[in-house]
């Protein structure tokens, strides 16, 4: 296991795209700071400069090729026979992307702290109470924690789809649609069937994309029709489900 992990890290760190993606995150954070710095400084800090979506974009770009690149150049053959079994291959890729995800979040915290010291946004007190009867500092850490759940959920979808479809462009497209339109699609489901089926439909996986947003914007609850606790539990369960499905597909795949 440890050697599988080592190899995956080695490869990840040597790909240019792994370093390009954080730049994208940084760029978007700056753009957000520019546009909202004076109007909603506290919200910006709580959400680490609204970095949730762009982190997902970075994850899609980096994680979608973690399988397809090796499928394409057949390096997967080497990876597989050198590893005791397929589970370890799948699992070490998962861990590496998970850690990459955590690292991205840590970077956004750091950048948030630095940006908050610049004139880009208005001065705010980190210890004053903001949302959920908690200090802004706690709000920020809690949002990061929640966003880790959301982004791990997206990772599970990326893994499942990249084992299903070899074309990495299609994998990226499908995931981007889920990230950016999932909320809208889910809302449509719920809106139409307001009366009879919404009790079931509110548990559709697209609804889980809203988790982070609902945490910093309580008004979302009326769209998702789920409480934050329910969202967390459902997201967690879907993550497990998709990871199992992804692994099952990976196991069956011929190279």
């Amino acid at each position, binding site marked *: 296991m440890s050697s599988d992990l080592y*190899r995956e890290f*080695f*490869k990840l760190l*040597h*790909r*240019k795209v792994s370093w390009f993606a954080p730049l994208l995150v940084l760029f978007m954070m700056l753009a957000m700071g520019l546009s909202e710095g004076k109007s909603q400084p506290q919200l910006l800090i709580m959400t680490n400069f609204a970095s949730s979506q762009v982190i997902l974009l970075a994850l899609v770009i980096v994680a979608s090729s973690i399988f397809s690149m090796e499928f394409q*150049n*057949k*390096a*997967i*053959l*080497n*990876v*597989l*026979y*050198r*590893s*005791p*079994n*397929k*589970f370890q291959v799948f699992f070490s890729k998962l861990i590496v992307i998970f850690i990459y995800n955590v690292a991205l979040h840590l970077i956004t915290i750091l950048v948030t702290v630095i940006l908050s010291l610049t004139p880009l946004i208005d001065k705010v007190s980190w210890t004053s109470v903001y949302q959920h009867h908690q200090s802004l500092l706690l709000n920020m850490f809690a949002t990061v924690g929640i966003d880790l759940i959301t982004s791990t959920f997206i990772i599970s979808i990326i893994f499942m789809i990249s084992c299903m479809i070899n074309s990495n462009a299609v994998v990226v497209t499908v995931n981007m649609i889920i990230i950016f339109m999932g909320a809208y699609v889910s809302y449509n489901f719920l809106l139409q069937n307001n009366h009879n089926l919404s009790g079931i439909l509110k548990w559709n996986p697209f609804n889980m994309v809203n988790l982070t947003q609902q945490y910093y914007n309580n008004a979302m609850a009326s769209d998702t029709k789920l409480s934050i606790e329910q969202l967390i539990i459902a997201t967690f369960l879907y993550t497990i489900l998709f990871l199992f499905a992804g692994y099952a597909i990976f196991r069956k795949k*011929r*190279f």
Partner: protein
Amino acid sequence: MVKVNNINVFMGKKHIIKNVSFQVKPGEIVGIIGPNGAGKTTIMKTILGLLKFTGKVSVADRNVTEDNHRALSKVGALIENPAIYPFLTGLQNLELYTEDKNSMKTVVKQLKMQNYIKSRAKNYSLGMKQKLGIAMALLNNPNFVILDEPMNGLDIESTILVRKLIKHYAEQGTSFLISSHILSELQKIMTRIVIINEGNLIINKNIDDFKNINHSRYKLLTNNQKESQKLLQEKGMLESQSNKYLLVNEKNIFSIQNLLYKNKIQLLELAPQQIDFEQLVVRSLNKKAEEDEI
């Protein structure tokens, strides 16, 4: 070292490998030969536990299955095109799988790759990539090495180098399973030949035994071919004719010499019939096809 016992591989409904069994002993170099699409690569992938199969594969008496590759810890392989990450240098590609840095350096030196091993693999030439693939297979002093078309794209010097290297490793006890379409090359190193056609194993012989199919025929030239032919035919010792020669079986050559001597016929030439290796393989493949028709 490696035992392949009655394996069958299906892809979809297609039966690709049919009841194939063979063994590779320590230090043996097994050449696997067959037409395009015969199933050579598939057999290699199966041994590496990369495909679903029925039957049994074991390496060093430990079973290999699709889900358990622990028996492969001392196995190296190069399958079809070398699996190289273009964004890493050659050395980094090796580092990824190396267990001890010294063995890595040895391999690089053995394959004479020092000059370019530190530059990115995406700038490598075809032969450079191929050598890197071979180096990856030879890492960590393996007990068993699988090479699929190893000479692909290598220049003459490198071909000789790789050939020597394979022999060197084999002398230390490493077994090899090598496929190649360049028979002359394979012929120089293999100690056992396995011929595959349409997923069936049709020949599995020690190389000397295989060549002996060839040596069992002698060609005969005398100062009176007509008379000799008549004599031999009477005794039932004439196998066939080719050009001016009469072809006879090895086991009869002494009695034939006596016979000719008795009949005062002078022997001009009696030598093993030379068929080249290529023809031999083609003949083996055809023989199988004919048998199938009957």
